[in-house]
């Protein structure tokens, strides 16, 4: 035990120590916004507007939560409707995006077909476009398909995730062909190969795509703002954006907005923490020689 301890201390050379310190500082810096949002939600009004602003709450209160509940109880559309919409849309988007990206990535990586390279190049090209560039054509497509004010109108524009396809294609290329051939000889169908071998082996990438897709859809404002006319079809981030806008002063409802921000952030964080474990676990023990 003593030897082990001594060895681990000896391994901490000065450059290594410096590296750890720098990385720790970096991590703390990255963590600051999250700490701020959590702490902000519990601040009483006077602390919300204190100048210079303070990071950590001094006298935590649940007053902001009550305010948010009061605001929503007064409106025609309850907050739960926005949340329900958000959860339903995000769940559907994550599920479908992951399936589509994985299938597309598998086909591009392991199923030779003519035009494969051009198709992949096109998908990579899509990575270059900023979302704003495609907003107008996207509007025309959604309206042309008659998806205004429907759930597919929320989900469909988010399904194509070029980063996801790219990531999964790169990962699936790493699967040894022998693994798929062994399964083929064992009697697996092509879909069986995909589902029982390719996807489990690429779980870290699949989890990453799920995270990306969730972040993309959970905080998405675009579909609610442009494609939904009725309020009951809009999502929680939209509701959040309306909390403080359109008001005569910029002091009112700041507490409620702080709580709402926390509510938007929390699922993102939880989703990431759950999947992150899986990502690291699978990465470390891929078991492929």
């Amino acid at each position, binding site marked *: 035990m003593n030897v082990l301890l001594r060895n681990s201390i000896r391994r901490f050379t000065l450059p290594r120590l410096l590296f750890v310190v720098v990385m720790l500082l970096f991590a703390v810096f990255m963590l600051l916004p999250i700490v701020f949002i959590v702490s902000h939600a519990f601040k009483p009004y006077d602390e919300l507007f204190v100048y210079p602003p303070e990071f950590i709450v001094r006298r935590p209160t649940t007053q902001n939560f009550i305010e948010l509940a009061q605001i929503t109880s007064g409106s025609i559309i309850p907050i739960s409707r926005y949340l329900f919409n958000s959860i339903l849309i995000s769940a559907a988007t994550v599920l479908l995006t992951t399936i589509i990206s994985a299938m597309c990535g598998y086909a591009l990586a392991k199923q030779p077909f003519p035009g494969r390279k051009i198709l992949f190049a096109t998908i990579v090209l899509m990575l270059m476009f900023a979302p704003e560039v495609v907003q107008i054509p996207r509007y025309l497509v959604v309206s042309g398909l008659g998806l205004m004010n429907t759930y597919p109108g929320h989900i469909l524009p988010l399904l194509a995730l070029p980063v996801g396809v790219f990531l999964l294609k790169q990962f699936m290329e790493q699967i*040894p062909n*022998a*693994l798929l*051939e*062994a*399964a*083929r*000889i*064992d*009697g*697996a169908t092509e879909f*069986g190969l995909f589902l*029982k*071998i390719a996807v*489990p*082996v690429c*779980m870290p990438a699949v989890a990453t795509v799920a995270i990306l897709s969730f972040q993309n859809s959970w905080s998405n404002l675009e579909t609610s703002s442009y494609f939904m006319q009725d309020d009951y079809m809009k999502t929680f981030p939209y509701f959040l954006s309306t909390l403080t806008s359109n008001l005569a002063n910029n002091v009112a409802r700041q507490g409620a907005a702080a709580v709402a921000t926390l509510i938007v952030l929390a699922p993102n964080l939880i989703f990431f923490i759950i999947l992150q474990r899986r990502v690291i676990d699978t990465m470390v*023990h*891929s*078991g*492929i*020689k």
Partner: protein
Amino acid sequence: MANIRIEHVYKHYGKEKHPVVKDFNLDIRDKEFIVFVGPSGCGKSTMLRMIAGLEEITEGGIYIDDQLVNHLPPKDRDISMVFQNYALYPNLSVFENIAFGLRMRKLPKYEIELAVKKASRILEIESYLSRKPRQLSGGQRQRVALGRAIVRNPKLFLMDEPLSNLDAKLRVTMRMEIIKLHQDLKTTFIYVTHDQAEAMTMADRIVVMRDGIIQQIDTPERIYSLPSNTFVAGFIGSPQINLIEGRIQANARGDLEFVTSRLRIAIHEANAELLRKHERVDRTVLLGIRPENISLEALFSDAVITGKYRFTELMGADRFIYLDIGQEQLLSARVSPSVRFEPGASVRLGIDSLKTLFFHPDTGERFAD
């Protein structure tokens, strides 16, 4: 239980001019252990993959039990295959790895359990059925790969260099286990390797390949003692066979002799007849002689060779010495391990002239009866 017939099989990749496999013909009998051997890139693995159905056949036909299987997908051929890198499913436990093929065939649960238990007992992997492949050593992984192959009781086993990732000692152990497995299962095996020792120890018949063309199909004994050409002679056997270029001449008594600028070796009567038949008198030939047929013990024979001692390789039970006899290559000979020579010493060794082989100097073909 399977007879395999391979008829005029060719394999071309894309628009490449030279086929990877060329006019491959082979009849494999039921329960036979066939080994494809050759240097890398000789087409042996491609041929195996065509039998498995993982690679398309450009031309020709493969028959398993007289059924043409050219267009049959791998899963319908009733075969199983062991891969070089084991190809175990990393996400499944050892039990599930072995059971995978049975589950795909929708066998009832109790049958799967029984079959997996039986296979794991044979291969002595019962104690780690619940582990994941990553928690196993190379040898254990190879056993699991074998387990996955035998659990389905296929007609035919295909093995693609299954031992090449293992260390030397384990390779010898697993080699014996595979021989034992073949004896117990009584099934046809096709085994691909580039290791001539594996081919010699395991095979009922060896198929030696080079550049996609079969060089020789025969039993290990005959491949070793009667190679069809200089390639087979050189590929099988370690240290390599000695090949010496020289002329065949008749001496004053009318007996034939093999003559180089520094050597004059008497030719055995049986070989002399052969060389006369092939009209090689007064023409050049390649003489092939294995190191173990050149020795101090054979000095009493009339075929004696003298060379300058260069270096030695001690193998434990044997010592191989290398002599400079004025040829491009050194001559290797087997002597007793207790014998030692001074560097540069002149050494006289006898050749067992009955064991000499004669090859055509241009084509490399052996002159045969």
